[in-house]
């Protein structure tokens, strides 16, 4: 049903920490590898060894430079479906292929119903939908719906592939609908943000902005060291220290 559930029991999603993401692409390839054999298998690659390779990826990492009055910084920015609360990608779908689960809020595509009209990808402001030109249906991040509940995996592995792989631990996962959940608390603490909130899609995924980086360190450190000035200068100091 492409009508949105009026509310969902949980709001599962990812939290991505832009302060620590080093842009290593681990989440990108781990997502590709899990999902190419997973729920939406395969994630086709066209011209994989040719001039214009173009594959289906559910998660892509960008690199930006942000220039502000106080300076410039480099930011790595992973981007996947945000599992929005009021996403038009679902409501525009003419076939019911695109839907939002009322249990956990995951936005999925039912490939068997999809006619490949691509309208949902037009309706997604975040570029999170991926058309598979070979299978001719729309695909997207499943929030690893076939991992997070998978009884064939050890309990501890039931997290999205990208979260498990991220070597710096910049990715987090959980129920953002529960204010007491660890992810919600993290978002609160780090003042997580929505992407393009002005569009009203109410993304579930949150981004933790890069922390302010004062040029100094620990505030209590002095700006420079004072030379030892007492008698004998440095060597006098050594002497006194050793006799102490």
């Amino acid at each position, binding site marked *: 049903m492409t009508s949105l559930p009026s509310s969902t029991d949980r709001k599962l999603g990812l939290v991505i920490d832009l302060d620590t993401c080093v842009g290593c692409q681990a989440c990108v390839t781990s997502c590709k590898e899990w999902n190419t054999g997973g729920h939406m298998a395969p994630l086709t690659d066209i011209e994989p060894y040719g001039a214009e390779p173009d594959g289906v990826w559910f998660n892509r990492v960008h690199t930006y430079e942000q220039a502000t009055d106080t300076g410039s910084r480099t930011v790595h920015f992973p981007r996947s479906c945000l599992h929005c609360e009021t996403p038009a990608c679902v409501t525009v779908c003419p076939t019911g292929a695109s839907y939002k689960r009322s249990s956990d809020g995951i936005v999925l595509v039912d490939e068997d119903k999809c006619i490949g009209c691509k309208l949902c990808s037009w309706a*997604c402001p975040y570029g999170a939908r991926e058309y598979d030109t070979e299978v001719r249906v729309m695909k997207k991040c499943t929030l690893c719906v076939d991992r997070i509940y998978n009884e064939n995996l050890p309990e501890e592995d039931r997290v999205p592939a990208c979260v498990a792989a991220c070597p710096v631990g910049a990715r987090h996962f959980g129920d953002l609908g529960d204010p007491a959940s660890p992810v919600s608390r993290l978002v609160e603490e780090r003042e997580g943000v929505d992407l393009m909130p002005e569009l009203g899609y109410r993304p579930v995924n949150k981004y933790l902005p890069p922390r302010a980086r004062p040029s100094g360190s620990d505030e209590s450190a002095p700006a420079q060291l004072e030379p030892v000035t007492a008698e004998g200068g440095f060597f006098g100091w050594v002497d006194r220290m050793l006799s102490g």
Partner: protein
Amino acid sequence: MHPAFSVIFFTTSSGAGYGLLALMGIGAAAGLMPDSAMLAIVGLGLALAMITAGLLSSTFHLGHPERAWRAFSQWRSSWLSREGVLSVLTYIPAVIFSGGWVLFGVDAGFVRIAGLLAALGALATVVTTAMIYASLKPIPDWSNRFTLPVYLAFSLATGAILLNGIQALTVAPVPALRWLAIVFILIAWALKVAAWRHNDSLALPTAASATGLGTGEVRSIEWPHTQENYILKEMGYQVARKHAARLRRIAQGLAFALPLVLILIGALAGPAATFLPVLAAVLAVLSMVPGVLTERWLFFAEARHTAALYYGYPHARTK
């Protein structure tokens, strides 16, 4: 947005077809249509052909046309689904209207009712088409108050230009329609210019907002993948400002100015069905076709999608 020919053709062809159907339907209901089977065959035949061709062409755009029937299911939420439903529903009065007119004449009561219903269906279908675009918030060039009236006006203007041509060619001229065509052209033209103006001065979301980084200038220095992907091919289409300006002039000239002048010439040149008005009416149609295709190409090509912001696409119109 990538200007896919199938979609350009669909919106222009079925738009004009629906306009033509609507005008003939309303005309019939209002008793303004000459009772000419020829007019019905040519006019309604063309309208249905254009509608059908457009709809077929739009299914070429689908990955799985064999599943197209599924698209009727989500009329509660999806404008595309509504468009599908309405376009099919409209066939019912349209076919009755056309058949009835040819067989029983335009003045038969049920024909007039069918005409009215067909017209309503046609206009409603155009509204749904427009709403597909108008409801796409990621594309501010579309999701604004102009898209719907522009689509309607275009549908009616192109329908009127067609009707004008058909009338001129067939034996049943309705001079009033010429003036109607002129009015629709002027409305469409004005709306389109206003829409362009609006879009040119849009404050679009920025990369800073797209990335949540908030402040300053956010520049893309590396794409996630070095070659273009689906998003870029579909939504990263960019047209140079100079090029677009030229195309806008061409579109206005061919879709509005020239037909307007030609129809005016026809109107002032004297009785219908004489050589000059016929030539003018036909030329107006011939001018309108590439003009509207150009406009529709620009409608897509100039539309900027927020997803492209992630790839560093400038949100201001490029030079």
